[in-house]
């Protein structure tokens, strides 16, 4: 086994790390139930092995160093959490691409909710999956001729101090269509909430503030103000579990989706 100066990491297997004065130490990397960042777990494990046995000669300094290591491990965990949440939201988008409504819905917590535009709130993975499917015709996959690209872009992620919950603002940039029938641009902003359950990040609340779905021909400048009820046929057919959480208005009206962070707290 080669011990280099840099941590070597093989997902799901063992991590080897070089310790220049003590040779190589092998650390078992436990199988993770969730997709994880590669860098952060390796870094945290590397930090963890540096906690030494207490040395009587330097008790005060060693205790201080150990306190710094504990603090450092917490900060590394927060970075790993941000990475996991970004990946969670990105795979939500990749499942939408394929019309894998079941997979997209499985990313939600048991009591998780989803709310898009003026369509009201759908609660729990089963209802969320049914609603997402109904939005694109009711099939369990994207069918031949359908396009459903939803890019998940521009994240602003904040993890709570206790590391149990998080919030994220994202942009949804969409290209939708039915072959030889329709094509449209989609534009919206998410303000989502996430929860960590048994070490796995899940979507606790997804809120997409739809700004517009505009036909390719003519684009967004051709849009007229939406009626008072601008819910989609899918919502009207299924009936949401709860009414819309707050009134929102799409383009050409100007509506600012609320921010989960105050001015000055963006970072």
């Amino acid at each position, binding site marked *: 086994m080669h011990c280099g100066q840099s941590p070597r990491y093989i997902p799901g297997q063992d991590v080897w790390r070089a310790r*220049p*004065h003590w040779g190589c130490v092998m650390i078992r990397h436990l199988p993770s139930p969730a997709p994880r960042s590669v860098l952060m777990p390796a*870094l945290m494990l*590397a*930090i963890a092995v*540096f906690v*030494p046995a207490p*040395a*009587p*000669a*330097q008790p005060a*300094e*060693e205790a201080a*160093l150990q306190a*710094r*290591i504990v603090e*450092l491990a917490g*900060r*590394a965990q927060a*970075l790993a959490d*941000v990475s996991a949440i970004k990946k969670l939201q990105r795979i939500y988008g990749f499942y939408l691409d394929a019309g894998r409504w079941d997979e997209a819905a499985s990313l939600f917590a048991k009591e998780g909710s989803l709310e898009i535009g003026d369509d009201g709130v759908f609660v729990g993975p089963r209802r969320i999956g049914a609603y997402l499917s109904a939005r694109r015709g009711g099939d369990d996959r994207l069918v031949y001729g359908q396009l459903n690209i939803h890019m998940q*872009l*521009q*994240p*602003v*992620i*904040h993890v709570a101090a206790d590391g149990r919950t998080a919030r994220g*603002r994202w*942009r949804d*940039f969409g290209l939708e269509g039915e072959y030889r029938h329709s094509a449209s*641009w989609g*534009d919206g*902003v998410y303000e989502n909430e996430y929860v960590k359950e048994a070490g796995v990040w899940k979507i606790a609340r997804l809120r997409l503030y739809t*700004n517009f779905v505009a036909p390719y021909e*003519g*684009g*967004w*400048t051709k849009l007229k103000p939406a009626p008072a009820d601008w819910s989609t046929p899918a919502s009207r057919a299924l009936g949401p579990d709860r009414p819309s959480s707050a009134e929102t208005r799409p*383009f*050409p*009206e*100007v509506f*600012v989706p609320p*921010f989960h*962070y105050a*001015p*000055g707290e*963006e*970072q």
Partner: protein
Amino acid sequence: MRMIAAAMALTLSTLPIPAKAQERVETLRAQVAEYEALVARLEAQEAVENIQAAFGYYIDKGLWDRAAALFAADGSYEYGQGGVYIGTDRIRQALALTAPQGLAPGRLNETMQLQPYVSVAEDGRSAKARWRSIQMLTTAEGQGRWGAGLHENEYAVGVDGKWRITRLHGYVTFLSGYDKAWTADDYPMAGPSTTLPPDRPPTEVYQSLPGNYLPPYHYRNPVTGRSGELAR
């Protein structure tokens, strides 16, 4: 002799242990410092990505006051050929040249902040970043526009621990009408405002498409080490 031997024996039996412990503590101290610096740089990268993304969301909705508040007190803002504005108040006024605070019905100003390449300084106190921007716009006259551009920005952390934009430079790749392709219906960049003249003239004079000017890369090629100026 016996005393010397006894002293040597004492030395051999006692000194190596504290020396070893001392060495171990020093190794540990160096390693902890190394990982603290690494974690701080990763945190800095997240902070920079958050504030630039937040800047984009404010620009989307014409929240010029909040966008300007993301800059350091002596920060600078430059967009296209509009020249350089210095200080948060001047930056807020410069941003408001394009549309009123909060926009107006029918105005669209979607300005995506994408594809960040963030370089945090070794000491973790400043950073540079290159970003791509794609825009979906509606002008005051109700015309649709596609826009594409780049940013080469600089950031620094203040004494309060908050990251701010110290220099924002937006470069226009193209601005085109919605109905025709970007190679068929291009709109040149506006020059410096006459109603709110900039504090300094444009730092780089160039033309958007059909010109194909690209700003220098702030980073060296990570594989070859070639400078970003030469690689252009």
